[in-house]
């Protein structure tokens, strides 16, 4: 294919699952128009361009780079810094890039804890020699290198500046198409905008009408312990649904699958901390007034962090679980 004057577009993935690539492929018939309108210069899942091809480009040569995945390794940092440098517009694509996503649940653990379990303690592992992945492995006077595994998972904008966000795990083809159209037409909103409606999901929810005005929850249910009414608001059935706190734009797909929203679109622009907001909403809706009754009702939420920050722990106000070490340092009179 000859170099064209078409705007250059790059796709890249960091700590991700490939679902975002599928979401792009799920543009289905529309992808043909995209391919027609742009020149894809980098897309590991589908095309054979390499890192050095990227490095060889002039700075800002790429009109838009869509990056998905959280940032977990030094290689990902390097790649997104490279893409940032080569692109006029860096778009965070999907929940992992925007908020840390599912991989950011690992922010509840320390790096050493993760490595030790994965390579040593997991029941499937046999590792009598105590081998761990190494930054550099010698081989015949040469070395084979691995990127550094960071202690924290980060959202993309915690490493490089991001121009726009397309939310979702994964984003819907419709949102992706709308964003690409806006990009190609040069009619993008102010920098930093999340390219999805800035209203919570309830607005799009087909079950909104069945939500009573007063939930007065006595307990939270777990979805497999209750016969779910496929017509009724899930919160009204005691199922923790993140919909009220979560940006819409997904067309309430999980609800249509008769399961609760888990919050992959992240919060609205007015909210700093997705988890804190849904926590406040849920807790306020409880009926009991005594600590014991409250705790009983909340027992149906066995995993607050995993429920409220399913996708957004990295981008939460606290960002990760605090390690035990710092306090101890200080007590020894040795502030970090």
């Amino acid at each position: 294919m000859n170099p064209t004057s078409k705007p250059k577009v790059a796709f890249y993935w960091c700590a991700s699952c490939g679902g975002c690539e599928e979401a792009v492929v799920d543009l289905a018939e529309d992808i043909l128009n995209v391919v027609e309108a742009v020149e894809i210069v980098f897309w590991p899942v589908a095309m054979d361009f390499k890192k050095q091809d990227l490095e060889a480009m002039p700075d800002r040569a790429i009109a838009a780079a869509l990056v998905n995945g959280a940032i977990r390794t030094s290689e990902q940092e390097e790649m997104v810094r490279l893409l940032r440098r080569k692109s006029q517009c860096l778009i965070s694509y999907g929940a992992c890039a925007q908020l840390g996503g599912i991989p950011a649940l690992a922010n509840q653990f320390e790096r050493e804890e993760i490595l030790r379990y994965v390579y040593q303690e997991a029941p499937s592992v046999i590792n009598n020699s105590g081998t761990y992945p190494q930054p550099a492995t010698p081989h015949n006077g040469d070395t084979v290198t691995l990127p550094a595994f960071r202690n924290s998972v980060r959202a993309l904008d915690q490493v490089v500046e991001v121009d726009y966000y397309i939310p979702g795990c994964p984003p819907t083809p419709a949102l992706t198409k709308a964003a690409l159209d806006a990009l190609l037409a040069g009619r993008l909103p102010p920098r930093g905008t999340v390219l999805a409606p800035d209203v919570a999901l309830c607005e799009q929810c087909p079950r909104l009408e069945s939500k009573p005005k007063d939930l007065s929850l006595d307990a939270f249910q777990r979805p497999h312990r209750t016969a779910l009414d496929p017509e009724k608001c899930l919160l009204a059935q005691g199922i923790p649904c993140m919909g009220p706190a979560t940006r819409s734009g997904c067309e309430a797909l999980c609800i249509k699958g008769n399961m609760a929203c888990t919050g992959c679109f992240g919060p609205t622009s007015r909210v700093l901390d997705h988890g804190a907001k849904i926590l406040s909403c849920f807790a306020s809706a409880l009926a009991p007034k005594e600590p014991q009754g409250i705790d009983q009702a909340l027992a149906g939420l066995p995993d607050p962090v995993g429920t409220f920050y399913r996708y957004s722990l990295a981008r939460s106000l606290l960002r990760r679980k605090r390690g035990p070490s710092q306090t101890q340092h200080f007590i020894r009179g040795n502030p970090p």
Partner: protein
Amino acid sequence: MSVATPILPMREASGASSAGLHRPRRVTIDPITRLEGHGKIEIFLDEKGNVERAFMQVPELRGFEVFSRGRPAEDMPQITSRICGVCPTAHHLASTKTLDDLYQVEPPPAARKIRELVYNTFMLEDHALHFFVLGGPDFVVGPDAPPQQRNIVGLIQKVGLDAGRKVIGMRRRLRDLIAYFGGKVVHPVLGLPGGVSKALSPQDLPGFQQLAQDSLEFALWTLQVFKQAVLANPEYVKLITAEAYTHKTCYMGMVDEQDKVNFYDGKLRVVDAGGREVCRFAARQYLDHIAEHVEPWSYVKFPYLKDRGWKGFVEGVDTSIYSVAPLARLNAATGMATPPGPGGLRGILHDPGGETGPPHTGQPLGANY
């Protein structure tokens, strides 16, 4: 992360084309492309330019086995699907079946059928993805085509826009079916212990039946494309069956009571490179049969047959390495459970090699078809 890795020979690596003059000792392929997952390959060459050693590295770790701990069991189908967004349905249903086992519940027949329908649909659309988008361009566009064209775009140019639309349209319809039950097609939500979250409305059934017919036709058409693009080309056949692309490992696949292929349920059966059964076990016994080995140069661990012990990256009848995925699945089974379609697939793959044993996983040429 699939074990099968569609990389083509030397031509791929930069600098390797100026053959003979300054042949580099080391060839780096970064990133590996057209597969799901992150990878990098380091190849070390000897003085003659032959591969002395190659490292297929996965430079990434997310730690699902750690951060899944302590979470409500029922969240697992949705969390584990994020291991892979290309095959989320596989992880989702594996987790869901684990929940059945955990809660000791048997899903009612309708729920089981819905799960099977979703999973089989996924198998179909996922293979279409692989064939046309990930692996296929190597053949359809051709191994000699410039790398910039060996992709879906090039493939559509080659097969024509109508054929391209046909592939895209069929995948969309299949994926819509998954979304019908799963809410989302990438990271579906239908799995619950003992069942599924959503039922099938009777009025939607005829549409799905039509889709089944259409997808059968599509599969046959795809087979035709494969036959024309690959099997009709003696050079390709030679390539597929060449010693260099043959990988003699053990093979694992899921089988039913009669050792026929089953995608959704059954026992895991492992055969060796000679076709002899090594073991046959239920998924919940996997720890008795499978172990993981750690290497310092990759974040990914290497599963192997525990009984045989880690023997290193060696091939042959005695290796403890096993392959999975389509070809391995066929190898591990004695046949398909359904009547063979016109020009049965197994025959096609068997014949070119003309061997009596199982066909072995060519890299990448046979494994994923």
